[in-house]
């Protein structure tokens, strides 16, 4: 089993999920199975984390041939870029099974399939394999929103599904184009991502293929202006699905840009990095301002999540080691903080039967533990020093200023917007007067405290002592950036210089 640790982490939950969906398992039994399986995955994940030596290359590689004539392999592997995304998923999933108990077995089955598919997408070393997992991970979310979502669930499912599938099918065309170009250049078929760095693409076709990839990932992240599916989907989805979407799936979009776009489309990426960075910053500000205006706290969190995804994406487009390390770090930090916030929102909604901020008030007095946990996650989300959010955002803004001062300044400013909507919401929900609705609010049970504790601890530890995490990711980030710089030299572009030029103006 431990020779195939990645395969086990992928297929154990998928198989368990399929069994839950197909076999007549009782409701409580399925929750227990889900929890046990996700803990098993977590244990495998911890073993993997401990065994990971962080030299910068791929580790735990598994490879076997699938479709020989097209050079498609079943390739899995982990490096510093994928490790933390992978771990974020493994750590966070057991929490969901602990927290939500009222739903049917399909709920747990779909969650498990989503977990397996997401792990697969993060580990895949072959473009076709990646695409398969990428598409499969959408299916459980589609069913979860449609089956267990709120009132507007059907339009929300349609919106997210059509949007994402449109993006990913165009990416499929781009993937195949890359494979065919590889075949023309080297005379053999391959979709192996490690070999794609050697590929030289030219002309408008390369730009189109780059656009195909970027579109798919920009929709998934989501990057401005492709974020319009997000508020509906996040709001209407059941809490667990929102959690999966915001905490992990969006991060896989970011991860995929780093893994697939940067090495293959170096010149194109460099050329359009500034535009993309502006898209990231505009998204941050726009979604932040939109969040201030929301009356529904889940919708507000949705916009806040979109706004933060903007800064995470920005970190890639700055093309330097600091920003990239910051992004990779922030992926985990944001997964824990925003993920936790959505889970809190789920609990709040379940107990209060409302999502309106105006209906709530004075919860801090009724439920001090809940309020404290919420406050920690919220402060991490706005990037208060001492929490995990600070390290990542600091690194990204540092990198952004190095890349382009205007973007750096705008990114820094938009963090203030984040503080505005979060603190204002916190004031209205947790302080102010208790009304008859919040009168009956009960604090977290011990199981819930136990479920949240690891996340809260992780937020604080990552904020105070980030070095062990950064050590795991930095070598991979350096390799990625140096290969990008190498690509730029080949393409006769120098973005760092361009950044300095703008500084002089």
């Amino acid at each position, binding site marked *: 089993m431990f020779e195939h640790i990645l395969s086990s982490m992928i297929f154990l939950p998928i198989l368990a999920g399929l069994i839950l969906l*197909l076999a007549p398992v009782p409701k409580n039994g399925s929750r227990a199975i889900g929890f046990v399986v996700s803990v098993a995955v977590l244990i495998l994940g911890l073993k993997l984390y401990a065994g990971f030596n962080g030299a910068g290359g791929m580790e735990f590689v598994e490879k076997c041939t699938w479709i020989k004539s097209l050079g498609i392999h079943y390739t899995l592997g982990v490096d510093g870029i994928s490790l933390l995304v992978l771990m974020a998923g493994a750590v966070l999933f057991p929490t969901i099974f602990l927290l939500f108990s009222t739903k049917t077995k399909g709920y747990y089955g779909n969650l498990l399939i989503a977990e397996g598919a997401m792990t697969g997408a993060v580990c895949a070393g072959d473009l076709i394999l990646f695409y398969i997992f990428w*598409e499969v991970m959408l299916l459980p979310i589609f*069913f979860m929103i449609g089956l267990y979502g709120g009132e507007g669930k059907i339009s929300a499912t*349609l919106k997210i599904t*059509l949007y994402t599938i449109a993006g990913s099918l165009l990416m499929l065309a781009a993937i195949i184009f890359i*494979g065919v170009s590889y075949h023309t250049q080297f005379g053999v078929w391959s979709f192996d991502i490690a070999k794609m760095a050697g590929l030289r693409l030219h002309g408008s076709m390369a730009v189109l293929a780059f656009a195909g990839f970027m579109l798919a990932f920009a929709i998934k992240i989501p990057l401005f202006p492709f974020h319009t599916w997000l508020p509906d989907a996040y709001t209407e989805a059941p809490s667990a699905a929102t959690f999966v979407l915001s905490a992990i799936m969006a991060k896989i979009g970011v991860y995929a840009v780093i893994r697939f776009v940067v090495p293959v489309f170096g010149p194109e990426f460099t050329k359009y990095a500034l535009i993309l960075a502006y898209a990231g910053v505009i998204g941050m500000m726009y979604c932040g301002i939109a969040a201030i205006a929301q009356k529904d706290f889940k919708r507000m969190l949705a916009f806040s999540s979109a706004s933060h995804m903007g800064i995470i994406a920005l970190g890639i487009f700055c093309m330097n080691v600091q920003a990239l390390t910051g992004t990779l770090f922030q992926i985990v930090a944001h997964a824990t903080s925003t993920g936790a916030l959505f889970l809190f929102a789920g609990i709040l909604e379940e107990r209060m039967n409302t999502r309106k901020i105006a209906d709530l008030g004075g919860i801090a007095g009724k439920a001090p533990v809940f309020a404290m946990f919420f406050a920690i996650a919220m402060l991490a989300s706005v990037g208060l020093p001492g929490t995990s959010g600070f390290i990542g955002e600091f690194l990204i803004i540092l990198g952004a200023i190095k890349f382009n001062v205007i973007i750096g300044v705008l990114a820094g400013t938009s963090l203030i917007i984040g503080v505005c909507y979060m603190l204002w919401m916190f004031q209205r929900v947790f302080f102010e007067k208790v009304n008859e609705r919040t009168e009956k609010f009960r604090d977290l049970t011990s199981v819930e405290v136990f479920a949240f504790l690891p996340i809260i601890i992780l937020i604080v530890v990552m904020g105070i002592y980030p070095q062990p995490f950064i050590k795991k990711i930095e070598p991979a980030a350096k390799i990625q950036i140096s290969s990008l710089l190498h690509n730029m030299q080949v393409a006769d572009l120098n973005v760092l210089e361009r950044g300095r030029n703008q500084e002089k103006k």
Partner: protein
Amino acid sequence: MTRDFLLLLPLGIVGAGAILLMLRSALGKLTLEAASLVSMCVFALAFIAQILSGTIGHVSPYGSVFNGMLMVTDFTRVAGLIILACGFFTSMSSQSYFKENGFATVEYYSLIAFAVSGMLLLTMSQELITAFISLEIMSLSIYILVGFNRTCVTCAEAVLKYLMLGAFTGAFFTMGTALIYGGLNSTKFSAISTAIAAHGFLHLPALVGGAFFIIVAFLFKVAAFPFHAWVVDVYDGASVPVTGFMATALKTAVFAIFANFLMLDPGLKSAWVNYLFYIAILTMFGGNLIAIGQNTLKRMLAASGIVHTGYLLIALVAVSADHFTGSVILYYLAAYAVSTLGIFAALSYLTGNGEMRSQFDDFKGLAKKRPYSAAAITVFLLSMAGIPPTAGFMGKLYIISSAIQAGQVTLAVLGIVSSILSMWYYLRLIINMYFHEPEETFETECSVFGPVCTLILAVAVFAISLYPVTI
């Protein structure tokens, strides 16, 4: 000699089975259940014989006797396997269908066997008259099958439309054959190929005209733009298993002969490739536009069949005539056949008496009442939509790869755009089945065959997706 016999054995088995069933039904000594079992056995035997008749390369069975009219290649053998499997699963799901609908007689199964024998012959034809005869054996059987329910008005409408237009197609085909014979003094594919190699395709006006008429006939049969308008009404009028059979087996057979004809010389293919390019695009988008507007499931599936014809035309444009293997086309046909037959197998027992459940809305909440059937239908729909890890996805992957490799990037991208559009109507059924509350109980009186057939096909969707193909 034995090998030649073995190669034609599947055709012999199916033909003999068809005649046997016809005779037994005339004597009136066979029940419907027994007849369906007999026809399933016939198809299964023929399928096994087809697999065992292993051959390498191009063989012309009884070449001297038939004067090279027939040719067996790997391409025709696999096409034959798909057709036989379609016959098998159609017989199987028909059994369930006729538990609810009482208009069948034993001849029904006999006609399916006749149609399959025509299709098998069609795939092997290397000569225009043979192709015409087998095309007509197939078509005549299917005309009768479409109109089998004599008391139903839409059936009568369907069969009339199909028969009239089909007769025109037959006439077109004959006209093309006559022109080619007039120009070349031969109707054999090898003679056409030699003539093109000697003179060039465009220097033989009779051949250009003849090939035009013949290709029109093929495009009509596979429901490509602009000859696609009949398909929606005809598929809607025919009973569920027959629609499934037409959509899969007939399409496989006609695409086999279409590919064989088009690939007989690179000159012929390159002359038509530009037109096929536009026809493929218009077929995909025309089909999508029709499908989006439908409220009836069968009509939607009919229109989506047009879209799939468009994808197959992409493959036809992209494959090279120099070393033609056709594996991409066959893989897609197999993937499409499995999912289409599967969904029609499920519908054959879910639609109920007189096909009372036919609209999208009639399937609301199916997942709550019959979760396994709904899951199977979902699998089939996802496969048709080309979502991994299903066979439909792999089929699309091969088609798009071969298109891009052949330099047809526009076609590949438009194919992708078309499959984005098609998500809408596939998702619509899934949404109806899963995200709405049930309004009825979905209780049906059916034999075990329908659900078993659905299950086998649902497993096959995944099994086929794992099977690697050489482009």
